[in-house]
């Protein structure tokens, strides 16, 4: 059947190994004399190879415990109680949770709540003229104190590259326990805040969340949630957040349960 013309569908089927055996030779003969089609076929194969090279290994990763089917089918209330306790699950709730559990699509996600708490604190304190912070940047016990209360070794990232000077910080109630809020200011008096609180998910991508004239970028790393808030200028805020992210990551303390390396002093 060498004389039947080869269709575009057959070229795809050839690439995907879905061509009936009796048409393979015909397609190969066709490709030998149709260089444009041969180039397409080569291109499609290369695409498939890069897709497999990029994502193939995911299927060989050890399957996380959460996918254990007994865990998955745990009674729903129980599952949701656990879910409620974790930021990760709250994120699930944000998107797929409604679908699986019929929760109203208008319910805010834990992610958004976390961001919203940080943004509320941001809004509340950036307008404070006289008392924007509790403890000034110059005071030694700022970081030890906030670290001890939040339960993690905290750092206030250096954002001087963005003309942001650290004013100091304060302690706040957060979504999963105490939260620390660091405040920065530009020479022009624009204020940015850096919010840290415990999260029960290991890590997430950076997420941008705008609400009116203020915006927040949130991420979770080593079970700590961080939110950088400031004026809603997306590119600048994302730059600043990434700078903070990189700094936090490069100085990330080893996670330990025994407060190793944690300061002892503080009020």
């Amino acid at each position, binding site marked *: 059947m060498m004389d039947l013309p080869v269709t575009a569908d057959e070229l795809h089927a050839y690439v995907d190994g879905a061509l009936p055996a009796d048409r393979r030779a015909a397609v190969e003969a066709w490709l030998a004399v149709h260089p444009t089609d041969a180039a397409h076929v080569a291109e499609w194969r290369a695409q498939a190879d890069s897709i*497999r090279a990029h*994502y193939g290994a995911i299927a060989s*990763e050890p399957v996380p415990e959460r996918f254990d089917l007994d865990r998955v*089918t745990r009674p729903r209330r129980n599952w949701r109680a656990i879910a409620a306790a974790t930021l990760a699950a709250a994120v699930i709730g944000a998107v797929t*949770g409604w679908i699986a559990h019929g929760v109203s699509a208008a319910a805010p*996600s834990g992610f958004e709540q976390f961001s919203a708490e940080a943004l509320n604190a941001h809004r509340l304190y950036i307008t404070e003229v006289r008392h924007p912070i509790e403890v000034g940047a110059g005071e030694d016990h700022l970081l030890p104190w906030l670290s001890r209360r939040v339960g993690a070794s905290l750092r206030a990232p250096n954002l001087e590259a963005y003309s942001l000077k650290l004013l100091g910080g304060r302690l706040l109630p957060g979504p999963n326990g105490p939260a620390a809020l660091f405040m920065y200011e530009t020479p022009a008096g624009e204020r940015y805040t850096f919010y840290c609180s415990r999260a029960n998910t290991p890590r997430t991508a950076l997420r941008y969340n705008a609400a009116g004239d203020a915006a927040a970028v949130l991420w979770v790393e080593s079970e700590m949630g961080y939110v950088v808030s400031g004026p809603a200028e997306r590119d600048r805020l994302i730059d600043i957040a990434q700078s903070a992210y990189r700094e936090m990551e490069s100085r990330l303390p080893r996670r330990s349960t025994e407060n190793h390396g944690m300061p002892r002093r503080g009020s």
Partner: protein
Amino acid sequence: MPPREAWGRTEQHVGGFRQGVAASVPALRRYARALTRDAELADDLVQDTLVRALRSEHLFHGGELRSWLYTILTNLNRNRLRALARRPAMAAIDDNDAPDLAGPEAGGRDIERALAALADDQRSVLLLVVLEGLSYREVAEVQGVPIGTVMSRLARARMQIKDFLDGKRPALRRVK
């Protein structure tokens, strides 16, 4: 190029429904990750797929279990995108430095971006075919469309990826 079987079908679920579902988790995670480009989101989708599947066992009347699971996952993702469209405020930042975009190698990043630029149905067809090894007929079932539609989505996906990689973003299709 590895034989399709290496990527495609797992052994028929000899151990029954639950074991079949469990055995599909690695492939579902792979597909979800490629589909969403977000590890957290992908795993959430897989988890919801498993919840759905286990609750709906009575609706599964034999056939290819994996296709059925891909169908659930694909639909959940569609719902998710619809929900997101209603709530545009929160979006993952598409950026080199976003922490959980894996793969430092530039080629991987390119294909990731090229896939991201595709329409969802096209991306899904291409991934189901080349990454998951589903047959065209199975993909048609997953998407609930005729095979002809699968073929045209596949062709468009491949053309657009080529155009994207060639640097012509809004894909201009050559007329043959």
